[in-house]
């Protein structure tokens, strides 16, 4: 391509589009390159987005046709054993009609496409079906554009924003950030199960337009460090389950068989019964945490979103960090363009913005959380089974005294897991999130 741009952005996900929207809105000549046939065609998430971070970019997004599936009014947590489990839920009327909505579900294929159209209306050029295969550099190793897989495919730009997600084939090739280690990512698979809107309302006890999220851990991931979720869409449910890739490598578990087992769990089956599977997908989740964040800017480039490991695994917040880091990157780029300094120094406003925000604060706070889970596999093996056993014993009415039952439970606890281990678990657990 002969034309030169001020900014080239790799990837039309939430991070890339947020940056493009912000830049184009200020009249800066911006191109976004996306490898999928349309924005969102390669992307998945559980599907929860956060109104606050999106409204910082498009304040009136609900009026502008944002494809919201359901506004989340209730969050459930499940801790499951093989045959049953514990459930806790929180609902608040405050979430019912809040504007902008606090959290809402989307299908990423529709959302990302809509979001990219908004950036397009502001003047950003979004080019799909184009893989960025390399970065162009000058003699001083400054990034000065990108190489694509199109004929005549070099695109020159004064600065490049890498918003190419966690699975970055560019990372390995160019070394701008290291490839993740298998324990830095979770491999997740997802089924979309279609059900009539009314039936979802009834099964989840909500009204039209309102929805529920369920976050699940325990014995459903075959003893691996993992998580599952069920989120409500308008007339479908998103079911995801994933586990750390290093655990997958050791355990010889097939992801789609694990998903099938999850769908047949006695707590899950009644929710999806009669539903029709519509789509099956797989994606990584960025779980490296604070200590795996690479250098986020250099001469002529910046990294935003998942590509920079900006993901809060405990609260499943990634899309919000992607949007806000994309916006911060855009603001720092505008500053740097004004100064005429696109070196690492000139772009450092990006890093200071991140450091002054919830993103760095939260990632720092939970920096030990991933290691905690990897070190305490009993969270996914012994503990949920013991929890299930204890509750089952106490709730089964069979003529045995409660005292005797307590004794039996205690005996089993001591047999299956040492007290020292439980103490260690609590200690490490509190430290990892404090």
């Amino acid at each position, binding site marked *: 391509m002969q034309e030169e741009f001020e900014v080239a952005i790799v990837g039309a996900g939430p991070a890339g589009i947020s940056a493009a929207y912000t830049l184009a809105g200020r009249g800066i000549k911006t191109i976004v390159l996306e490898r999928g046939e349309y924005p969102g065609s390669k992307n*998945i998430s559980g599907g929860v987005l956060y109104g606050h971070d999106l409204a910082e970019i498009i304040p009136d997004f609900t009026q502008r046709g944002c494809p919201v599936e359901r506004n989340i009014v209730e969050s459930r947590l499940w801790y499951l054993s093989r045959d049953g489990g514990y459930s806790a839920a929180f609902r608040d009327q405050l979430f019912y009609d809040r504007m902008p909505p606090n959290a809402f579900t989307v299908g*990423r294929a529709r959302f990302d496409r809509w979001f990219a159209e908004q950036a397009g209306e502001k003047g950003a050029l979004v080019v*799909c079906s184009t893989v960025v295969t390399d970065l162009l550099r000058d003699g001083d190793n400054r990034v000065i554009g990108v190489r694509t*897989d199109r004929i005549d495919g070099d695109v020159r730009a004064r600065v490049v924003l890498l918003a190419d997600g966690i699975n970055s084939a560019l990372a390995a090739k160019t070394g701008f950030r290291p490839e993740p280690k298998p324990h830095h990512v979770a491999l997740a698979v997802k089924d979309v199960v279609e059900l009539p809107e009314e039936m979802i309302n009834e099964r989840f006890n909500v009204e039209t337009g309102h929805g529920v999220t369920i976050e699940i851990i325990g014995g459903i991931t075959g003893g691996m460090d993992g998580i599952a979720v069920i989120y409500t869409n308008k007339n479908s449910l998103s079911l995801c389950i994933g586990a750390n890739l290093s655990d997958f490598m050791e355990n010889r578990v097939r992801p789609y068989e694990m998903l099938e087992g999850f769908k047949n769990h006695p707590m899950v089956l009644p929710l999806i019964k009669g539903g029709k599977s519509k*789509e*099956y997908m*797989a994606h990584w989740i960025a779980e490296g945490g604070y200590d795996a964040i690479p250098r986020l800017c250099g001469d002529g480039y910046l990294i935003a979103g998942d590509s920079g490991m900006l993901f809060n695994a405990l609260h499943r917040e990634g899309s919000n960090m992607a949007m806000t880091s994309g916006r911060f990157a855009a603001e720092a780029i505008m500053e740097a363009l004004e100064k005429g300094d696109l070196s690492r120094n000139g772009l450092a406003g990006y890093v200071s913005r991140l450091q002054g925000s919830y993103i760095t604060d939260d990632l720092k706070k939970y920096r030990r959380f991933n290691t905690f889970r990897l070190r305490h596999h009993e969270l996914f093996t012994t503990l949920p089974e013991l929890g299930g056993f204890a509750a089952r014993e106490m709730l089964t009415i069979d003529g045995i005294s409660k005292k005797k039952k307590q004794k039996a439970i205690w005996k089993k606890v001591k047999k299956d897991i040492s007290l020292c281990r439980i103490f260690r678990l609590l200690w490490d657990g509190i430290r990892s999130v404090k």
Partner: protein
Amino acid sequence: MTVKIEDKLFLDRFRVDQEPHIRIADNTMCMEKCEDQPCLYFCPANVYRLEKDRIVVAYEGCLECGSCRIGCPHLNIEWRFPTGGYGISHRFG
């Protein structure tokens, strides 16, 4: 409770690139040095299949998660994205 991967992949929309985007660099490595052959299990699309004396790659059904690229303990897999616009296209996402 059996699930066939073919039935799951059947739900997806693929535009297959003529040129494979995944290649095993050295199949002897797979058969002689790789005891666990983890790619046969963790791949969510069951792209890797063991035949008599080699591992074959059914790249057409790849979900593009990237796991085999870093999960092969011998880094024996050459992996790139399918050509722009090819591969899987999510309809819901």
